[in-house]
């Protein structure tokens, strides 16, 4: 594996620290394929998303096919295969939040940010996504921004909430 490539054909270069982290993860499991999701997350932590070239590099590091890595990358909702904003807003749209006025909150987000689900603000600050039940049902409607979970969030709280994420 020492000869594993670090540069993809499209010029993507993996950071040495990320390469080491992926190889470290690879040795945690019975088979290298198991490190695939974690490898994608390592790349995503660095770049905010998983660029095309990273797929080939991860495949090479783990000794599995690029198709397999891409199949995994496109399956999981928290792996992003397109660039996202500096902050990702996940709005819970499951039943308990739906019962506690999720739709008003969703509309407030789309009005305030001028984008719909799956879109990124033109200044590259926020990406808005729906997410399945955040497990914060006793305090719905719930929202997650980056690593922080909030709830209940009312439309009036949006300025306070968004100001926290430059």
């Amino acid at each position, binding site marked *: 594996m020492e000869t594993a490539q670090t540069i993809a054909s499209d010029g993507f270069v993996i950071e040495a620290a990320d390469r080491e982290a992926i190889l470290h993860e690879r040795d945690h499991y019975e088979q290298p394929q198991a490190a695939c999701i974690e490898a994608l997350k390592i790349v995503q932590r660095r770049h905010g998303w998983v660029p095309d070239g990273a797929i080939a590099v991860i495949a090479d590091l783990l000794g599995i096919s690029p198709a397999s890595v891409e199949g*995994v990358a496109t399956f*999981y909702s928290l792996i992003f295969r397109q660039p996202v904003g500096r902050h990702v807003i996940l709005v819970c*749209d499951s039943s308990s939040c739906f019962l506690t006025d999720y739709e008003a909150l969703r509309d407030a987000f789309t009005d305030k940010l001028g984008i719909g689900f799956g879109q990124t603000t033109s200044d590259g600050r926020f990406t808005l996504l729906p997410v399945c039940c955040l497990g914060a*049902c006793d305090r719905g409607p719930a929202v997650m921004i980056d690593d922080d979970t909030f709830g209940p969030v009312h439309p009036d709280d949006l300025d306070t909430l968004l100001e926290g994420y430059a």
Partner: protein
Amino acid sequence: MTDALSRLRYRCQLRQDADERREETHPLTWRLHDDGTPVFLKEYEDKDGYAAVRHTLNEQTGAQVIDAMKTANVRGRGGAGFSAGVKWSLTLQGDGMPRGYIVCNADEMEPGTFKDRLLMEQTPHLLIEGMILAAYANNARYGYIFLRGEYIEAANHITRALKEARDAGWLGADIAGSGFDFDIALHTGAGRYICGEETALINSLEGQRANPRAKPPFPGQSGAWGKPTVVNNVETLCNVPAVLRHGAEWYQGLSGQLSNDGGTKLYGVSGRAKRTGLWELPIGTSGTELLDRAGGIRDGEQLKAWLPGGGSTGFLLPEHLELPLDFDSIGKAGSRMGTGLLTVVTDQQSIVSLMRNLEAFFARESCGWCTPCRDGLPWTVKILQALERGEGEQGDIEMLDKLATDLGPGRTFCAHAPGAAMPLSSALQYFRDEFERGVRHETGPAHADPIPVGEV
């Protein structure tokens, strides 16, 4: 984080004071603090923590542990309600059989469910102790906690607790001088509800797409990397230490005459109740008592229906609140107890709209592996959207009936589509008039294409 922002932060809440929670009656939560700060190793050990591991690994055989779990009748708290002891008795072990895995299903994503979060954030060592005991009973060599990626605080607290346990000798080689070796790694997910299905979870753990696997073979025969694998929910595993510390009879006695099921249940209430949250109560406590503890329904609203344990359980009516909340009683009423966290629906809510929301969730979260689920769920959403707009046509409701049957048990690879069918069939049964009000056309603009294409 500013103060204003910090006030909006979510904190999970147990709605019982420390004086109510005692070791003799609250095996899951008696160690917790009223302010929600976590219990780490020193305090956990001071409060009898790991005593069950020390005793069991040195004094009992794995077979005795399995017998105790069967007698205690700990039924799977992830929602299926299968006896944990029976599940463990089916794990292959012995001559020529490799030592396999204990996998903790911590992928809590069932709509309306927020109980495992509390246990992992506030008492991570209880889970670790339960996993060690489960590993001993099943002769497992290694454990994985499969945690959903969004549970950041739980991940931090589990990571710290694993290190503490390892440093103190509760994980690793020769645990408590017993000669038994076992260790645990934390695996965090990357989204998708289907990862909570136990065979899909194993595929995800192996770094694959989370499609379910055919059963048999069951994971206990051939699971992760082809080895015997036991998958248990967080709350199930958290019950194990108390069963082995105080005995199966004691555990059975916790629920007394309320239920044949043993122990307590971490119940919860969400939706349109006044005082939503979590309570640890004897299993078999009635819905009435639980809703009383939640302060009743919000002012000016009337209880219309409730889901007993997540989005994949069937609706029940106000009169069903008298029933004991246990697996058999709720099952007999035509629903499932599921995770035991009530979702409260009032007269302010259209059932057709709520069903549309639920089915849109299941449609989005389908892994797409088998046809009834992949195509049937978006079709269901399309019909519900039409009915919601008053653009339904003759035959739509009958088609929903048919879909609810065709997506039911036995027609699909896993329980995802049957989980989506159960609330739908109960909604059609109890609130048919609401669906009928959405039918306005003989044939019309919302004609539901049998093969839907694209986003729903």
